[in-house]
């Protein structure tokens, strides 16, 4: 863990930083940021199921209750992809952006592990 004070345009900013498993965790100005260090610095950080990759991964171990999409479906941002259950609670995983379903890698009642790929998405032509 590193605690540094940066000077940004004459303003003092205290930053807490730690590298954990290929991710850089930062805390400053009351917010926490997570950056993936493993694949260059091109990508922006995004938390969540979609992560920054093009597939939906299980955010935690649990059971798939119902898959709402099929291969080839076109999705709008926020469309429901699947519902899973973990720790006795239900969670809905939704499309992070407009996209197409390239492949569905799980089915109803599957037990899934943390970070297991569930659905492969095609985000279209992206720069």
């Amino acid at each position, binding site marked *: 863990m590193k605690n540094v004070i940066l000077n940004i345009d004459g303003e003092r900013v205290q930053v807490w930083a730690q590298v954990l498993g290929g991710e850089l*965790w930062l805390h400053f100005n009351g917010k926490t940021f997570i950056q993936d260090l493993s694949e260059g610095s091109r990508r922006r*950080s995004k*938390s969540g199921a979609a992560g920054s990759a093009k597939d939906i991964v299980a955010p935690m171990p649990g059971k798939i209750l119902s898959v709402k999409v099929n291969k080839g479906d076109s999705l709008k941002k926020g469309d429901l992809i699947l519902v899973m259950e973990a720790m006795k609670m239900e969670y809905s995983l939704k499309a992070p952006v407009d996209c197409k379903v390239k492949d569905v890698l799980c089915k109803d009642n599957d037990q899934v592990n943390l970070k297991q790929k569930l659905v492969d998405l095609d985000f279209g032509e992206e720069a």
Partner: protein
Amino acid sequence: MNNIEKIAIANRGEVAVRIIRACQEMGIATVLLHSEADENTVAYRLSDEVVCIGGAPIANSYMNIEKVIDGAKAAGADAIHPGFGFLSENAEFAQACIDNKLIFIGPTPEAISLFGDKISAKNLVKTTECPVIPGYNGEDQTEETLLKEMDRIGYPVMVKAAGGGGGRGLKVAHNSSEAKMAVESARREGINAFGSDRLFLEKYLGNSKHIEVQIFGDCTGKVFHLFERECSVQRRHQKVIEESLGNISPELRAKIHKSAVSVAEKAKYLGAGTVEFLVEGENYYFLEMNTRLQVEHPVSEMVMGIDLVKSQIMAANDQSVFWNQNDLTPHGHAIECRLYAEDPYLGGVPSVGKIGFCKWPYGPGRRFEVGFEEGDVITTNYDSMIAKIIVHDESRPRAIKKMIQTLKETVVFGLKTNIPYLLEILQHEGFVSGEMTTQFLANNFPKALEKEEDSEKELLIINALKKQMSAKPQQQGELKNPWYEESK
């Protein structure tokens, strides 16, 4: 007269730490009864002794009466503190403690069963002045009777199919013209979904506050009230932010305290308990009584200047508390936020893993109830609450500002937390105004938080740190020999 010298703690997380600390300050030895999954926790390190009672699943450990009792006996404990959750409101467990000559720190098994059953609880409350939610659950199920009862209860009225749940077979009639339709439709759904056409009626309180009164029955039979808490900020019936005192009129306050005490007195209640109410305007209705220490007990402790856990131990030890009801005066305002390991941008999906680093920003009026520290692992075995943050200040506006500042300074790496969600709530007009009802979160935060794009300045800082943190350590040159100055 009991003489408790060693207490077994049948719980985990931050409440186990809370109990161990109270015992240590009272000169009582502690033994933590833990599961295999809980060796990397603060309570495990802090307790005088530990006994592993079983595997991670709660049925094999924390919910297993036999294993808990065996563990306590093996360690030679005199008493068991159940904390909250798990076996804390299990009458069979309280009885098993007594049968094994262990003091159960809590009420009698009879009081637990009495309040554990909704019908017997309601029947007891009906013998006091305390109002219950008006309703009808009679044998006469003719439409005529039901409609007459609905008019008597007063609209809006909720029509529920017996055996219903999860919103199915549940209809709300807002006035008498909707009554017939609500009865017919609830009955249809009841028959289709549960094979029963039996209905019951209850006044619909869709716009109510959750107000609860902390009570305490001491060993002499005297029941104290320790003012009230406001816990309307709930998500799926789980409290997220709790406060003391509540935003109620002095008249209502006096009535609700009196009612809470009368309910506890009627049950000859011993120890800490909470009488929960739904409040709409100046009307209040008994909801249920919790026969245990509550998660949110610290806000009452801060405002009242008392220690509920030590008082519980004293009551179990046949010692009377030092209080006098007239001297119990609240001071200022306290707020508690439950810190969960979860992803607020994913609608609260638990975030499991190892805590890489954490910093609790201590300061005046800031209290941290922490169950896990750096290096500890949050698993999917249990609840994902990692800590409770409580602040106390002279007024509610100050306490809100203090909580916002405290949360912003709190650092947790390795796990995502609900801090961004808590900050949004604390700054929401509906919360700041104090007008929030139990529907507040469902109405205002129906979806997961939207992640904001990082600002220019934030990106600047992120990139600067990225460079610093990913830089390889500098290659060291050949070591100079410190025995000699520059070679000649």
